[in-house]
């Protein structure tokens, strides 16, 4: 067994373990952290496939941004653990069927003759081969329309999410920064020169 294979099995085992713990961990924060571990090990597997751009982007986007916001929300929610876990066995068969379909699809695609034959031909690249450059070239030439389409779909999703959740509260206060910056001293401060009296006021003795 070569070193690569060893590392692959290690990372794959870690991924499966972490993914299992995501759904079995009692504490939602622990579950989210296990999801982080799962992403990390997956990034490791991609790194083994010499897909360094995808691997690092996975860490950057999912671990560095998405999961941080996820944790942010999970930590702030007041989650009732008992309520969260009830109905687990009721939905369990449904989940098993779904998982079985997904496994079947993966085996079907990955186990087909075409994938096996092309997969076997993947050769190691030289050290100066830039995965990133190749990916960029493919995305912006051959797959430019699907790529742009996906980008537009994402944009629409963002706009829709904001439009659905945006509520203009009548009593919310906001600042106009331009106005704040434009304020001069004269607008806020008035210097009043009060003539000082010669005699001290009542209650004050010389």
């Amino acid at each position, binding site marked *: 067994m070569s070193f690569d294979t060893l590392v692959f099995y290690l990372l794959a085992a870690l991924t499966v373990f972490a993914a299992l713990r995501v759904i079995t961990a009692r504490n939602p924060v622990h579950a989210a952290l296990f999801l982080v571990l799962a992403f990390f090990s997956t990034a490791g597997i991609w790194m083994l496939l010499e897909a360094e751009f995808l691997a*690092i982007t996975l*860490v950057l986007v999912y671990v560095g941004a998405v999961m*941080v*916001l996820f944790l942010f929300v999970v930590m702030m929610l007041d989650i009732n653990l008992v309520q969260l876990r009830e109905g687990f066995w009721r939905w369990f068969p449904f989940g098993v069927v779904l998982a079985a379909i997904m496994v079947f699809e993966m085996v079907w695609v990955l186990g087909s003759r075409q994938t096996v034959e092309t997969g076997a031909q993947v050769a190691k690249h030289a050290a100066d081969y830039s995965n*990133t450059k190749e990916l960029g070239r493919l995305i912006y030439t051959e797959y430019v329309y699907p790529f742009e389409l996906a980008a537009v779909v994402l944009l629409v999703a963002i706009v829709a999410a904001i439009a659905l959740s945006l509520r203009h509260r009548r009593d919310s206060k906001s600042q106009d920064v331009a106005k704040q910056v434009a304020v001069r001293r004269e607008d806020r401060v008035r210097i009043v020169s009060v003539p000082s009296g010669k005699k001290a006021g009542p209650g004050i003795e010389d």
Partner: protein
Amino acid sequence: MMELLQAIEQMGQSLLGVAWVPVWTLVKIVAIVAPLMIGIAYLTLAERKVIGYMQVRIGPNRVGYYGLLQPLADGIKLMFKEIIIPTGSNRFLFVVAPVLALMPALAAWAVVPFADGMVLANVNAGLLYILAMTSLGVYGIIIAGWASNSKYAFLGAMRSAAQIVSYEIAMGFALVCVLMAAQSMNLGDIVHGQQGKAGLFGWYFIPLFPMFLVYLIAGVAETNRAPFDMAEGESEIVAGFHVEYSGMAFALFFLAEYANMILIAALTSIMFLGGWLPPFDVAPFNWLPGLFWMLAKMSFVLFLFLWFRATFPRYRYDQLMRLGWKVFIPLTLIWVVVVGAWMQTRFWLW
């Protein structure tokens, strides 16, 4: 120097065979981390001295000459303090959090070149790796805040998470401009792209000047340094995310913050200030080794960090968010387009 290194490598290879590569890598890691730790220790002293003089004080001057042994004394003090784990805290995560804060701050150094070819891992996607590693530092902070089971710590963690995620976007786009200009994500190649007859006029801080400012300011925000230190905010939330930590556990957060500062300084030097290149490629300047110039530039950027801290009052949180989302992100997005268009014309001289 190079011959000596080659001789050592040949000898090691013949002596240890396959085991040589991990051993040699370990030696290199120690050669990076040990000076870094000393740098961190003396950065704390420099900070106290610089801010002291800016505020017409002397700063620490009791331990050793000019207070030079102060960091050692502080380190020994922290080591002998008891680590208290609060009741109701999550024990495991409470202990792991400081490690998670420090680890990415050190791991990112793997791809930082200190001089021509003087780098631990010369990887092609170096810039991306740096971005990924710096984005992981926030985990230490939010886990610390949550595991402490304290409201001040939790508030600090929430502030920090939102702040770091917001500024990372602007930082990423600033780096996109750099990689467009250099046409490479390898940090060594980025420095080579700034090399030329023009000396310091060939460095990227000239064509990418707005990005230089954005990166520097976002770097201050990413490291939770004043004036963006809302995550600590000692006058509002006591000390923020590390309020429950004591002794060495606290020291690890402290180390992580300063390691991140030095890292941002190194990256700013590499990407905008020409890395190890001398400002003019003429006689007295290019006699000095590249390492000297690299360290000089890093020291300059670190001095800026300290200067900011002594100069500016803390931002309000909504002002911070506004600066990140409404100023920096649009500015970086526009500059990406500007650089792209500029590079297609004859006027791109870099």
